[in-house]
């Protein structure tokens, strides 16, 4: 239980650019340690996204709950939100003394987010890349999200129903 919470604690420090950026590295950590199978991880991601709340926190709560029940869920959630609190405290303290160029930091962080989301997309998609139906669902939803203004949650549910229809 502590192992699991520690993974989330560690990842918490590098969770730059929001929740989605870390899903890829989180998958690598959890699967390589045998804490979740790729199949279970895929299910966790879907559930975390269709439940209200930030996806990364939901993922932490979900894995904790799946493995160790309520206590696990609580421990994981807390482990995951401690790093941002610590970093925020440090940032408040040093921001009075040191002046870093805000624009430069923002630009650099944006590049880091790009890297991490790329890793997320690749590691989420690659295991299923041989299945044709998967391309159809991901492709359709990509086009819909790029060309229309439909709310993402409806697109995800659409994807779910497409899955029921065409996946085997």
């Amino acid at each position, binding site marked *: 239980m502590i192992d699991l919470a520690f993974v989330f604690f560690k990842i918490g420090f*590098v969770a730059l650019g929001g*929740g989605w950026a870390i899903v890829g590295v989180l998958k690598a950590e959890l699967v390589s340690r045998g804490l979740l199978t790729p199949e279970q991880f895929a299910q966790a991601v879907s559930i975390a996204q269709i439940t209200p709340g930030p996806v990364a926190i939901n993922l932490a709560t979900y894995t904790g709950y799946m493995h160790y029940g309520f206590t696990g869920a609580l421990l994981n959630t807390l482990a995951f939100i401690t790093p941002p609190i610590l970093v*925020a405290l440090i940032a408040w303290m040093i921001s009075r003394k040191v002046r870093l160029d805000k624009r430069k930091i*923002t630009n650099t962080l944006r*590049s880091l987010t790009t*890297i991490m989301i790329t890793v*997320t997309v690749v590691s989420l998609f690659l295991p299923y890349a041989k299945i044709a139906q998967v391309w159809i669902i991901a492709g359709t*939803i990509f086009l819909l999200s790029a060309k229309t203004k439909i709310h993402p949650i409806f697109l995800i549910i659409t994807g779910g129903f497409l899955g029921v229809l065409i996946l085997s």
Partner: protein
Amino acid sequence: MIPMMMWEMEKFSWLKKDKFLDVFSFAQCIPGPIAFNTALLLGKRIAGISGAFAAGIAVIIPPFFAIVGVTSIVRLFSDNVYIGRFLKGCYMAIVGLLVNILWHLVKRQKWSVYKTLVVVAAAVLLYLKGSFLIVILISTFILLYIKEAKF
């Protein structure tokens, strides 16, 4: 979630829109889920450290119980083929949405040869050697920050 927070802040006249955007951009600079960070920083801004704690805790309570509830329900049907396919479909839809986010993110930036190389190299390394996560990210940050200084 963020637009709703902004709206509520103005409604209670706690914080003006431009001040809110300052807080939001700071929230993006610290690790962690952006919605959580924003709540934390807004709490601090309006009511000090105790406000930060109150807001931080308040923003994670609803999703926490939502997850516990949803998981308990899904568990009952975990053998159901259709639920499995539905979740798999959602998962693929998420991949589609992420590609769209990534596309916008790439489009919004300026890409020098140097930056492209660093970003591609870091992404490949991170994918192959996830265990060196922190080392890779810190060195990438430094590499990119130094170069950014010359613009």
